[in-house]
C-alpha cells in the first residue's frame, strides 16, 4: 500500500525549440511531471527518478485511494520512510518526450501541420530526454540534483546525466541497466517493432485518423518484451508446463498457462500503450551508446563524470545482465570515481529491479542515508545563514 497518499501530476509547457540528436528539433512541447516531498531552502535535496519503457512520471503515490492499482510504478522504493525517503528528499518524476502518458508524443498535434505527429514524431534519444529533463529542472530551480536515479532505460538516463551534466548531480544511481544494448537486445526490439509496423491497422503510423489501433502488433511486441523481463527459472516456477484446462486442446488456442499469461499481458498493454511510442522508445534504447563517440571506450566516455555512483544488477537478469553493469563499474574504476556495486542474487530476472528484494532495498536505503547525511549539513548551513 502506498504511503504517499494521493498525488497529482503537473505539466510544464516549453515554447523554445529543443534541439535533438537527430538534427531535428521539437517546439511547443509539454512535459508531465510529479513531485513528492519538499525542496529545501538550499535546493540541495532534489532527486530525479527516470522511468523505463512503459512507465511514466507517476513514480509513487496513488491517484485514487480506493484503487491500489493506481499506485506509482516505483511506490515500493519512493515514499515516506521508503529507501528513497520523501520526508528527506524532493523527488521528481518526469514523463519523457514521445511517451503516451501526457508529455508531448506522437498522438499530439504537430504545431506545423495541425495534425497528430503519428510516425512523423521526431526520433528522440536518451540524451534528448535528459536535455528536456534538465530544462524542467531549470524551471523548478534545481541547479544540482542530490541524485539522479533510474532502472533499466531509466538507468541509461541517469548515466547520460552524469556525462552530459556532470556538475548537475552529486550521485548517480543506475539499476539493472547497461551502457549499450547487445545485438540480442536490438534483435528483440526489432521483432517488437516489426510486429507493430506490419500490423495493417498501423496505417503508416497515422492510425489515429483511422480511429483504430494496431492492437495485434502491440500485443506481440509486449509478449516478446515480457519474455525478456522474466528469467527462465522464474517462468518455470510460476508456470512450468501447467495446462490451463488440464488437457491438450489439439488446436492453436491457449493450452499452457504461460500462453494465457502472455496474451493477457499483451491485451492489457495494447489497451493503454501507444504503438508509435513503443517504436520510439525501443529506438532510443537501441541508439544509446555513450562510448560510441569515444571509439567504443566507455572509460573515456565516463572520464568527464563528477558524480559518485551506485550500481546494482540482478544475477538472473539476462536482458541487462550483471556483466553489462560490471562494464560500467570497470570504466568508473579506471577513472577512479567513487562507485559501489551490488550484484543481487535474485531469481526474478530483469523485473527484479521493481520488486522488493531486501538485499537490494537495503543497499539503496543505505546509499540514500549517506546522501542525506551529506545533504543535511548544507540545509542547516543555509538555515543558519538565513
Amino acid at each position, binding site marked *: 500500500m502506498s504511503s504517499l497518499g494521493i498525488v497529482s501530476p503537473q505539466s510544464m509547457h516549453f515554447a523554445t525549440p529543443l534541439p535533438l540528436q537527430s538534427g531535428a528539433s521539437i517546439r511547443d512541447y509539454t512535459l508531465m511531471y510529479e513531485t513528492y516531498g519538499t525542496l529545501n531552502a538550499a535546493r540541495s535535496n532534489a532527486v530525479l527518478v527516470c522511468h523505463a519503457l512503459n512507465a511514466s512520471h507517476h513514480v509513487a503515490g496513488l491517484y485514487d485511494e480506493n484503487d491500489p492499482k493506481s499506485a506509482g510504478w516505483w511506490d515500493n522504493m519512493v515514499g515516506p520512510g521508503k529507501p528513497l525517503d520523501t520526508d528527506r528528499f524532493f523527488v521528481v518524476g518526469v514523463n519523457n518526450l514521445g511517451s503516451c502518458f501526457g508529455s508531448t508524443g506522437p498522438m499530439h498535434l504537430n504545431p506545423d501541420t495541425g495534425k497528430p505527429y503519428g510516425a512523423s514524431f521526431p526520433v528522440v534519444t536518451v540524451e534528448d530526454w535528459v536535455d528536456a529533463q534538465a530544462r524542467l529542472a531549470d524551471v523548478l530551480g534545481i541547479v544540482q540534483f542530490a541524485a539522479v536515479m533510474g532502472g533499466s532505460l531509466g538507468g541509461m538516463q541517469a548515466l547520460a546525466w552524469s556525462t552530459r551534466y556532470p556538475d548537475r548531480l552529486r550521485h548517480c544511481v543506475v539499476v539493472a541497466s547497461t551502457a549499450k544494448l547487445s545485438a540480442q537486445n536490438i534483435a528483440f526490439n526489432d521483432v517488437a517493432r516489426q510486429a507493430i509496423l506490419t500490423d495493417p491497422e498501423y496505417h503508416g503510423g497515422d492510425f489515429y485518423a483511422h480511429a483504430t489501433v494496431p492492437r495485434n502488433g502491440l500485443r506481440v511486441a509486449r509478449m516478446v518484451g515480457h519474455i525478456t523481463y522474466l528469467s527462465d527459472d522464474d517462468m518455470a516456477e510460476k508456470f512450468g508446463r501447467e495446462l490451463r484446462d488440464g488437457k491438450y486442446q489439439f488446436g492453436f488456442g491457449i493450452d499452457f498457462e504461460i500462453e494465457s499469461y502472455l496474451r493477457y499481458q499483451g491485451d492489457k498493454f495494447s489497451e493503454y500503450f501507444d504503438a508509435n511510442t513503443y517504436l520510439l522508445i525501443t529506438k532510443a534504447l537501441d541508439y544509446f551508446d555513450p562510448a560510441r563517440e569515444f571509439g567504443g571506450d566507455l572509460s573515456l566516455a565516463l572520464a568527464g563524470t563528477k558524480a559518485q555512483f*551506485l550500481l546494482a544488477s540482478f544475477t538472473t537478469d539476462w536482458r541487462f545482465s550483471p556483466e553489462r553493469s560490471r562494464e560500467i563499474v570497470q570504466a568508473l574504476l*579506471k577513472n*577512479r570515481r567513487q562507485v559501489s*556495486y551490488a550484484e543481487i542474487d535474485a531469481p526474478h530476472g530483469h523485473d527484479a529491479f521493481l520488486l522488493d528484494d531486501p538485499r537490494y532495498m*537495503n*543497499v539503496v536505503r543505505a546509499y540514500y542515508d*549517506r546522501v542525506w547525511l551529506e545533504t543535511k549539513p548544507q540545509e542547516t548551513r543555509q538555515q543558519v545563514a538565513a
Partner: protein
Amino acid sequence: MNFTQLQGLRPDLAFIAHWIAPSSHVLDLGCGDGVMLDYLHSDKQCSGYGIEIDDEQIPKCVARGVSVIQQDVQSGLAMLTDGSFDTVLCLSALQMMKHVEEVLREIARVGREAIVSFPNFAYWPHRVALLRGRMPVSKSLPYQWYDTPNLRCATIKDFEALANEVGLDVLECVALTEGVPIGFLPNWRGSLAVFRLKKNDALSLSAPAKA
C-alpha cells in the same frame, strides 16, 4: 572514524593501518563491513575500493560511505588495471580463497605494495589441539572442521615461500595476538600472521642474482 575507534573495534587493523601511507590509493580484498577503508579515508585521506562478496556486508560498507564492489575477489580483481593501487590489503581473507596463488599474483599485478594477514595455523594453542588429536578451534579459527569457511591452513613459514614465488618480496612480517606484535617465537605465539609485501622488481633483484 578515528584511530581510537578502530583500535577498539579491530586492534589487528589498527596495527596494520600504521603501514599505510596517508593519501594512498587502497584496495581492500574481502573488506567486510568496510571499517578499515572507513578509517583510512577519514583519518588518512586515503581513497580506494573494497571488494566483498557477502550480501550482508554491502549495505554496511555503503552506509559508511565506503566504495564497495560486490564481487568474488578473483573476478573483482580482473576488473582492475595493472599497478593501479599503492597498497592492496587482503586481511584475514586469504585463508577462505580457493585459488590463493592466483589471487596473490593478481595482487602483485594491481598493487605496488600489499599487506596480507591470515590466522597462523602454527599458533601454539592450535599445535596443542592437534597434539591432542583434534582440529584447532580458537578465537582466530572459530569454526569446527565441518563448517569452516577457511579452505587453507598456513603458517608464517609457509606463506613467505609462496609470496616469493609469485613475485612479492617480504618487507616485514609480524605475528599479532590481540593486535599486539609478538617478538619472541612469533610462529608459536602469534595467532595472526601479517605480511607487508612489495612487488618484486624483477630487473633489479633477480637479474644480478642470475649474473
